[in-house]
């Protein structure tokens, strides 16, 4: 279980990278991507996925 970033919507602001408790988000090439291996959907750490909670664009950090 992991989230992914919809690249066409992403503003490349980096807020999600900053908030991810598991360092699962990295800037690669020209976009932010989520490493599905590391993403836990924030289970047990927060009520809701942090990336989706901070992302300024609706429906951009979504279940993979």
């Amino acid at each position, binding site marked *: 279980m992991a989230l992914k970033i919809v690249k066409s919507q992403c*503003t*490349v*602001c*980096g*807020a999600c990278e*900053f*908030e991810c408790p598991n360092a699962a988000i990295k800037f690669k090439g020209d976009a932010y991507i989520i490493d599905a291996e590391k993403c836990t959907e924030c289970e047990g750490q*927060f*009520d*809701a996925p*942090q990336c989706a*909670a*901070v992302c*300024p*664009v609706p429906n951009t950090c979504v279940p993979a």
Partner: protein
Amino acid sequence: MSATLIPISGLQVASRKDMGEAMAKGGGCSSGSCGSSQGPADMDPETWAKVKDHPCYSEEAHHYFARMHVAVAPACNIQCNYCNRKYDCANESRPGVVSERLTPEQAARKVLAVAASVPQLSVLGIAGPGDAAYDWRRTKATFDLVSKDLPDIKLCLSSNGLALPDHIDEIVAMNIDHVTITINAIDPEIGQHIYPWIFYDGKRRTGIEAATILRDRQLLSLEMLKARGVLVKVNSVLIPGINDDHLIEVNKAVKARGAFLHNIMPLISDPAHGTHFGLTGQRGPTGAELKKVQDACAGGANLMRHCRQCRADAVGLLGEDRGQDFTLDKLPEVIADATEARTAYRDWVADERRDRAAAAAQAEATVAETGKSTLFAVCTRGSGRINMHFGKVTEFQIYEADAEGIRFVGHRRADNYCLGGHGDKARMDEILRVLEDVPYVLCSKIGAGPKKRLAEAGIEAIDGLAQDYIETAIAAVLHSKTAHPGRTAESA
């Protein structure tokens, strides 16, 4: 011209004149005397030392010094209804234009290049898009790099305040002596219509809860910064129908907590920007509405009226943007700094300011005798003088003269109607609209056609006072009106 007024030619010293001319050619500041009308006389020395070279804080400095912004901190922790971060932060920067996004290293290189070729540079700011305090790692890395190479450049940052209390110690340690906090409401009932959500303490929060937390953190930031001796400017975006009546409360609240300046800016809203307000048809205020709220707040925290809402990657004197000259691909390989040029420029400014203050004081004394309030639209490119062609003007500096003296009260934008070399009716209509309540235009030159159109609308354009200090010219006009009713300043 009346004998009591000092003509500008009598004030000029040869070497300064050369410098002034060189500046005028370079474009210079296109703004008038503005904002907090305080000068050295009515400010404590410590505060004056901090603001005197900062174009955003002192109405005076604003004529002579340049600031630059770099967009290095794109992440934000709240959502404002007037901002669409796909483009730019609509608050600190003009919306709809995407800023060049820079890494801290690139930003530092850019600052170095600008400092080497723009001796007026005195301030580096980090503002939107994004929040400089939330995206702190990038903000701090940029400031660290710049202060290492250019210790004489002042640093400042703008924030929505939510993350600010976490960084107060570092702000003080890094010698950042100016911080801007944007506060649009202190009543959460009103705030909830401006901020749909905030991200705080691991959670997205909405409604009254979000607006309350944000308000509390903003006021806390202000108090903490004030206690540590950091100057705080508060920005408020005037949103008609939402916070227009409320801003006077904001003004009182921020003044009580020691804000140094309060800057009320008009909402910029257009459906094309894709902001919530743009899409819902929320309109921005008219020039007259803005002035009304600013006037209602006068007497509270010092009001700033010269803010141009420049873009986050703006470079130059207020009202001028040379950002395009300094994009990354245009930066030279090797950048040599020019500290001496900045020092020489600062010396020149010190002299120039003294003279302008003397001329203004004299002019004010003259005006005090005439009484009733009159508005003037001034065309200037800086140095406090009437030195711009009417056809070149993109914004008018509005001055008010009455028994209390002569003050800058705001600027009004009107697009250059002279694009392409011939008058464009639509643009002239726009100028007539923004100058609706202004009887006089002061400019260095104006063509016969535009002059006639202004006259038909009851606006008298005067170009006989070119190069005079603004205050001196206004006093001359008023004097000629009282001395010889019915005659213009030109023929007087």
